[in-house]
């Protein structure tokens, strides 16, 4: 079935803002040739282009590691902070508190998230702050040359021959359990699925957490690794076929309600899950967690959209934050008048 997310053919391909894909590119990547992270950057560029995201509204935020260098390689004209190891969640939270009109796109790695940053990660997930959290997950510390990370599977072998003997942290299960409202896993090599998941994340107003398995060609792409290109291709079990229909595409989509699930996103876009196992309900937390546990026990790498909740109040709504960005509220709104100080002083006399 032809998907609605493919824009109509046009000689000069521009999006709904009239921007070309070149407007969404970044600087030249300095990561290794073949690094999965570069493919993810490409998908982010495409997703933002196709969704008609205004680049100036994007805040690119990252921690430390190979993954965290990658925001320089997409959306050159956007704003960004390459912050500290494991601290992207707090930087992103602060930026969104200051300016809720931003689209916060956080890029992290498996070490950055599941080890040094696991504290900030879990608390970010609890808050359901509107932002996109992408883990570029290769199971290994790349920038420090190949140490094992906390998402590495038990029994997975390092290039040095060292075997990992501790169980992995499943960041998706953690995110679902703690309160993230759009959670999926993908593979940097699965262009179509990753693109659909990223567009869905852009349409979602809550915490979107995507764990993207992104093989490290230099330190973790060998025989014995469970995060190598060949291993992931062999063990990838997509949960469903994903199609994303943006709200501005005036295309009616035919689908068989028996085999397809249609999820309406916050902005009016639709995420279609086809060939989904009939009994699976991605709005059910418990099912999502069971799926992840079972697939893990079977040694499968299940990918797709595991959980989505469009009803949950997000953090900014919970805080009752003003609609305009707090950062640029005028003095008249943020400095109470002298009468207020006089009143407070009288009470203290």
């Amino acid at each position, binding site marked *: 079935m032809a998907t609605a997310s493919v824009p109509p053919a046009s000689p000069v391909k521009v999006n709904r803002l009239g921007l070309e894909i070149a407007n969404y590119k970044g600087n030249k990547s300095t990561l290794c040739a073949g690094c999965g992270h570069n493919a993810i950057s490409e998908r982010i560029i495409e997703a933002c282009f196709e969704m008609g995201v205004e680049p100036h509204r994007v805040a690119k935020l990252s921690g430390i590691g190979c993954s965290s260098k990658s925001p320089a390689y997409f959306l050159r004209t956007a704003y960004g902070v390459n912050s500290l190891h494991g601290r992207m969640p707090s930087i992103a*939270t*602060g930026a969104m508190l*200051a300016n809720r009109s931003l689209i916060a796109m956080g890029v992290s790695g498996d070490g950055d998230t599941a080890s040094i940053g696991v*504290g900030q990660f879990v608390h970010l997930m609890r808050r359901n702050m509107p932002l996109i959290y992408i883990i570029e997950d290769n199971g290994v510390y790349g920038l420090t040359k190949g140490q094992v990370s906390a998402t590495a599977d038990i029994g997975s072998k390092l290039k040095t021959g060292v075997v990992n003997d501790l169980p992995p942290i499943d960041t998706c299960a953690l995110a679902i359990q703690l309160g993230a409202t759009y959670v999926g896993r993908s593979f940097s090599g699965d262009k179509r699925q990753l693109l659909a998941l990223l567009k869905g994340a852009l349409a979602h107003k809550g915490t979107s957490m995507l764990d993207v398995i992104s093989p490290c060609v230099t330190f973790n792409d060998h025989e014995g690794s469970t995060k190598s290109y060949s291993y992931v291709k062999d063990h990838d079990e997509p949960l469903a076929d994903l199609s994303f229909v943006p709200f501005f595409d005036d295309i009616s989509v035919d689908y068989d309600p028996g085999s397809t699930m249609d999820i309406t996103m916050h902005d009016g876009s639709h995420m279609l899950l086809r060939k989904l196992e009939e009994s699976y309900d991605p709005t059910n937390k418990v099912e999502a967690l069971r799926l992840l546990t079972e697939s893990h026990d079977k040694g499968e790498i299940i990918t797709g959209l595991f959980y989505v909740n469009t009803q949950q109040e997000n953090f900014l709504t919970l805080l009752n934050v003003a609609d305009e960005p707090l950062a640029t509220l005028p003095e008249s709104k943020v400095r109470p008048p002298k009468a207020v100080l006089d009143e407070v002083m009288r009470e203290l006399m």
Partner: protein
Amino acid sequence: MATTHVELKESESHTAQKRIVNDLSIQVATVNGSGSQTANTVLLRAIFQMGIPVSGKNLFPSNIAGLPTWFTIRASKDGYIARRKDSEYLVALNPETADEDVLSLKAGAACVYDERLNLKRFRDDVVFYPVPFDQLVAPVCPDARLRKLVRNMIYDGVLARLLGIEMEEVHIGLRKQFKKKAKAVDLNFNAALVGYDYATKNFQKHDPYYLERMDATRGKIIIDGNSACALGAMFAGVTVVTWYPITPSSSVCETLIEYMKRYRVDKETGKATFAIVQAEDELAAVGMVMGAGWAGARAMTATSGPGISLMAEFTGFGYYAEIPAVIFDIQRVGPSTGLPTRTAQGDMLKNALLSHGDTKHIMLIPCSVEECFALAIEAFDLAEEFQTPVFVMSDLDLGMNNWMADPFTYPDKPMSRGKVLSAEDVRRLGGFARYKDVDGDGIGYRTLPGTPEPLAGYFARGSGHNEKAIYSERPNDYVDNMDRLTRKFETARAKVPKPAIQENGQREVGIIAYGTSHWAVLEALDQLKSEREIEAGYCRLRAYPFSPEVYDFIRRCARVYVVDQNRDGQMLGLLRLELEPEQIEKLRSVRHYDGLPIDARSITDEIVSQEAQN
């Protein structure tokens, strides 16, 4: 409920004694969790309302219930409000410490105590006033569960009778404390009356201490430093507040939440013009501040020493990436358990240079609640003007104790948001270089995320970037950037609050102090003059980097005593880093680090002793 005030009959022996009026310290020794806070606050307020300059210091344990706590109230006609080592009046209610409390009294002092403690046996040179607290409280407080709390009010009544505190002022104090809870006011006031009546019937006054109405507190307020910081932050226009609870700083944000709910919810929309988040730890609290500051908000956090340690990495990042941030540091004694509820100026050296690499930070140092308010506002202006983290260095003594003060002054200048370029600015300029020193003051121009102009975007990083914010590891780019940051710091040197200097033209002895040491130094200056004929000059630091006036002061003096409330003379160390050798030789150190607020006598004695060696 006015009580007719009749002077207590004085004893024969005492009538010959000189009356000592409005010059005493009262120490109340209780167990924490016993609800003595209300009785102490009301006592303080009643004295304040009688127009007598007063200060209160709560020396409390790191515990919720069951450990000893002392509250000291000092009334001083001369306006001295520093802690004094000795007390004239002791209220002894804690069996655990009563022996020691009584033994530490000076001769001639008075002691009101729970009669079950039988303290008379320890001293014959102290005036004793035994009170049967439990017997007295039962009839006025039928609810046995409340008795533990209400019985403390009895000593307010006893002290009122013995010292001459007007009961009507006690009543007003209670109404202030309980606001609309009339029942609580009545219950507590009745307990105070019982104490008052008991004292009337049973005591003859044998001590010379009196409190009498004067007119030195009219128009003044009573507030703690943390509340003053909170008010300053609100009037500074703070919009993002993130914090993690830690004694003694928690009440900065807790108080701020209350004020913001009251005064910063937009009346038209019903929405908050702020966001306050209790973070998971100090790493996250300061990270959120950095994210918010980068995005253009006036953002702050409040913490204490251990929290500062966790904030070190981000503070350095803020210095290098040039992100405005305000961090309130309510300093306390060292790490972990033991003395976290005791005061110290323990973070001065650490914060000045916090983080790794070459980092230096602006610190503002309030000595009073008025300055907590004013410097909080100043801190937000400086943070945005200099695009860097700024510390407000308070301490537990200032932050958690009640201080008498003049009403705060409404800010007389608009918020200064620093060098921020709009989309139009960037278009007109044809682009911008984030870290370029366009004006020669070391401060670049920034844009805020969301500014709708493709040339306005930039990617902030830590140490490695050129002036266009492009990733760079080139030695020249790094050196140029570090030298520009030095220029920026030098610009700040001229902009930060100047020291307060009192000299009287003397050239021999100088004193440098900062923060809460100020109040003890003021008293020590008088002691040095009246007791030793030493007329010292005094320079009170209000900021780091040090203004040129600080160096000039040192140059003019022969010997300079630097007063620190820490073991190693941290401020002296910081001065040493920047002074030329012949000036360093002049520096002497006066240090106080027992966890209690510094007192004048300690300073005077130390200076006298060191002067004798010259």
